[in-house]
């Protein structure tokens, strides 16, 4: 937003009306929080707080919120509040209030009056139209507060009078019977009531008019952003909470506790009986069973080492394929090709590839690549499929950063008599590298967590022992028949972190394969996957931040 925003000039002293409105907003906040707590089952509706059952507190709170909101509107109407309401609350408020009241009307028609489908629909339309008309046609203060306050108060009354903790409404569907229970209905109603009532109270707090609407809208927008971040924190935090105990089971730090690593290098010379060289064996100073072992009968702690190795090779292969292809394509599109049909077509195709569902890539890999690599699922097929998924992202981000390089750079270089390719190589590409790096890292984060494509193209056994981890570098050999180079490891089906998690969830693998605490194993696998993927994101975001800081300083 422009920096030239104007803040409010001096307003009157805070009055009783302001205080009421502010406390109504606060009450709405408390109701919202309480509803969340009940939804997450931290408190039950029958629990008592200060001697009163929670369901009663929710009902009374909603009722009080609704009544005070109506009171604010009425006070403003009769001039008891310093407010600047407009002639109408506006069409948007009218539509929203109409929809809310249509739901109320429909439910009342169906539940209270016991009408048929046509009846409750009619009821919904009539009530909704009435509320919408009332909102739009009356002065803003009344039009905003009365429908909203009445809605909130009505919800409170329903919670207090009709719905007890054991209330239940069976929907009467034969094959999958479902019923709305009090434990979901009451918190949902409280959420709705606190949002509507809180919004109306915020509008009243701003004295209606432009400023009031501004406050009301900002309240909702901020709440929305906060909720999204909250959901993120809950998701990540919960996975960490559940997975952490398993991750460090058997973890030890100390001299000589870890696996022995041997580094050997001898130079075998012909005709000499003596090979100069060295052999060094040392023990890793730590032992981390979950990360460094596989699944085997005699393991104290089973781990996911083979899956980690599989994921690493997948990512490396995909990057090796997609980055050169994507950067090359972006260079051609931006630097060589004239803007026209062809570049437009490629752009549409790249964006189309970007939004193509991952399972479709999987199907493609299964139909196109698998039959061509020894006719079996293999890591090669998986990694190429993921490379195809990564490709459009590389093209898009590279193209964006190439376009962001100022034309002066190119002109200055051309003025020195440097050829076009030299200019691209030594002027344009270096300037575009930050953007490309960031894009690639973020893209890698996305494909490292993909399950669907590798499910169809590369995955075989799930819980592998550590010695079956993929050994790509050690398996190259040359053959006499075409294609002359062979690598069995690349043509093997293997596992990867996301697939391991999927298989652990669906097949219940583990009970048969020596994993004692399957639930713990799943959560810890999820945590390792999350850590791997999110660290790519963290690095990507940090890189972008770093380059931007650098750019700002120069």
């Amino acid at each position: 937003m422009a920096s030239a925003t104007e803040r409010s000039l001096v307003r009157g002293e805070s009055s009783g009306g302001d205080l009421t409105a502010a406390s109504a907003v606060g009450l709405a906040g408390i109701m919202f929080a309480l509803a969340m707590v009940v939804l997450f089952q931290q408190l039950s509706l029958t629990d008592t707080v200060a001697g009163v059952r929670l369901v009663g507190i929710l009902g009374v709170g909603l009722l009080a919120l609704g009544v005070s909101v109506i009171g604010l509107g009425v006070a403003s109407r009769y001039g008891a509040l310093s407010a600047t309401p407009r002639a109408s609350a506006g069409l948007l408020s009218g539509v929203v209030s109409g929809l809310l009241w249509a739901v109320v009307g429909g439910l009342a028609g169906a539940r209270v009056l016991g009408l048929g489908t046509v009846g409750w629909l009619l009821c919904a339309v009539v009530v909704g139209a009435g509320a919408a008309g009332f909102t739009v046609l009356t002065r803003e203060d009344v039009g905003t507060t009365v429908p909203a306050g009445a809605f909130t108060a009505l919800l409170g009354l329903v919670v207090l009078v009709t719905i007890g903790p054991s209330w239940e409404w069976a929907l009467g569907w034969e094959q999958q019977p479902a019923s709305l229970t009090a434990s979901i209905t009451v918190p949902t109603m409280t959420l709705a009531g606190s949002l509507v009532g809180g919004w109306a109270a915020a509008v009243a707090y701003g004295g209606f008019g432009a400023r009031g609407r501004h406050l009301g809208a900002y309240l909702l927008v901020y709440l929305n952003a906060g909720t999204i971040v909250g959901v993120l924190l809950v998701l990540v935090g919960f996975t960490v909470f559940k997975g952490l105990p398993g991750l460090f089971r058997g973890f030890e730090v100390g001299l000589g506790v870890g696996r022995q690593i041997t580094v050997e290098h001898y130079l075998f010379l012909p005709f000499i009986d003596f090979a100069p060289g060295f052999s060094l064996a040392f023990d890793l100073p730590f032992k981390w069973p979950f990360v460094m072992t596989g699944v085997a009968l005699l393991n104290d702690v089973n781990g996911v080492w083979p899956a980690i190795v599989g994921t690493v090779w997948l990512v490396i292969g995909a990057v090796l394929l997609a980055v050169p292809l994507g950067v090359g394509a972006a260079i051609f599109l931006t630097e060589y090709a004239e803007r026209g049909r062809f570049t437009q077509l490629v752009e549409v195709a790249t964006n189309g590839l970007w939004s193509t569902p991952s399972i479709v890539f999987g199907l493609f890999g299964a139909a196109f690549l698998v039959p061509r690599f020894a006719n079996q699922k293999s890591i090669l097929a998986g990694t190429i499929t993921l490379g195809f998924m990564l490709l459009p992202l590389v093209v898009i981000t590279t193209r964006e950063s190439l376009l962001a390089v100022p034309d002066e750079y190119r002109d200055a270089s051309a003025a020195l008599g440097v050829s076009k390719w030299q200019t691209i190589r030594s002027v344009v590409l270096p300037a575009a590298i930050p953007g490309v790096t960031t894009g690639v890292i973020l893209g890698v984060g996305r494909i490292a967590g993909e399950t669907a494509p590798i499910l169809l193209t590369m995955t075989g056994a799930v819980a592998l022992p550590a010695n079956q981890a993929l050994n790509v570098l050690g398996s190259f050999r040359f053959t006499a028949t075409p294609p002359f180079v062979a690598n069995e490891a690349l043509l093997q089906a293997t596992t990867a972190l996301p697939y391991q998690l999927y298989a652990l969830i669906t097949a219940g693998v583990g009970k048969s394969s020596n994993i004692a605490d399957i639930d713990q194993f799943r959560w810890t696998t999820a945590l390792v996957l999350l850590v791997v993927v999110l660290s790519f994101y963290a690095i990507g975001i940090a890189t972008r931040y770093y380059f931007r800081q650098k750019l700002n300083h120069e």
Partner: protein
Amino acid sequence: MSRSSRIERYSHAARNTARRLRDSVAGESPVAVALVTVMALSLLSGLVGFLLVSSLTAVPLAIAIVAAAVGWIRYQELTAKVLAGTMTVSTLLILVLIAGFILRESIPVLRYESVTVFGTEIPGVRMFIQTRWDAVSAPVRYSMVPLIHGTLLVTLISTAVAAPLGVAAALFLSEIAPQPVRELVKPGIEILAGIPSIVYGFIGFTILNPWAVEQFNLNGGGTYLFVGIVVGLMALPTVVSVAEDALSSVPESMKSGSLAMGTTDWQTMVSITIPAAFSGVSAAVLLGVGRAIGETMAATVMLANTPRLTEPLVNVFYGQATLTSLIASSYGSARGNQLSALFAAGAILFITVLTLSIGSQYIEARMRRKLGGEA
């Protein structure tokens, strides 16, 4: 148009292309031109060999690599240009290959499910006019209707979650949030996009499914309702980032002009920014819908994956199967026509999402033209 004039037009176009090619290599040494031609031709034959599953594919590829290496050392300028061009063509090629292979694999089921109308056989129609999917007991039928219904329900619910929340979050990021808050929230939303879908599915499967059973007194497992909510959460970041781009592409001068009239920030947003960026925001929602349609793993893990219609159709407390979830869950055991039917489901997904993507690109391009013209 007469035949001769069409031929004339084609030959004209061919002449034009040839001239452009000649222009682009004008001034290059004939050896260099020969070298890149060898490279391009051997790449092409390598591709043909790969498509034909020939074991000799490696030979032309090796020739191409040698030609490229020699060209890179001797004639870097031309080689780089041709290589970059080849890479561009390959991105197009991948899309074409995806479309081709998926359609090719779905031909058997299209044949199997054909219907004879007035003596002519129309392939594939029976997949859409009845609702039975049964790969085992007779009559064996592969109807797409239950899958489309499942995808439709999940997409509707997830759009109802992702569209309003996403647009509000985009508004927050682009117009409202002060700089420090923005710096925190934006990476947060990116990370939300980064959480692997299987982790969402896992949490949905272990936490949400049992919770839903308890709260709604259900008989069993997954429901479209909660799959839709989870998928909506996953589509949210797409909506946010595209909508934010659209909102911040509204020229600053338009907003400042409005603010100079003494409006509040919110009034400016409602009456200037959002209307100006409306088409971009709707493109964002379309892309989000595309993401929701294509979302696979969360649905696969949470649903029962039995392709049936629900009873009644709006009963979202069922969890049968979506297009994506059925492919992922039954690909491993499917053979013959059933496998082909899964590819047909993939083809429906591919075409739908591609259409959405092209539609949203068209809308965005139009908006950019409009704003560019007015600013």
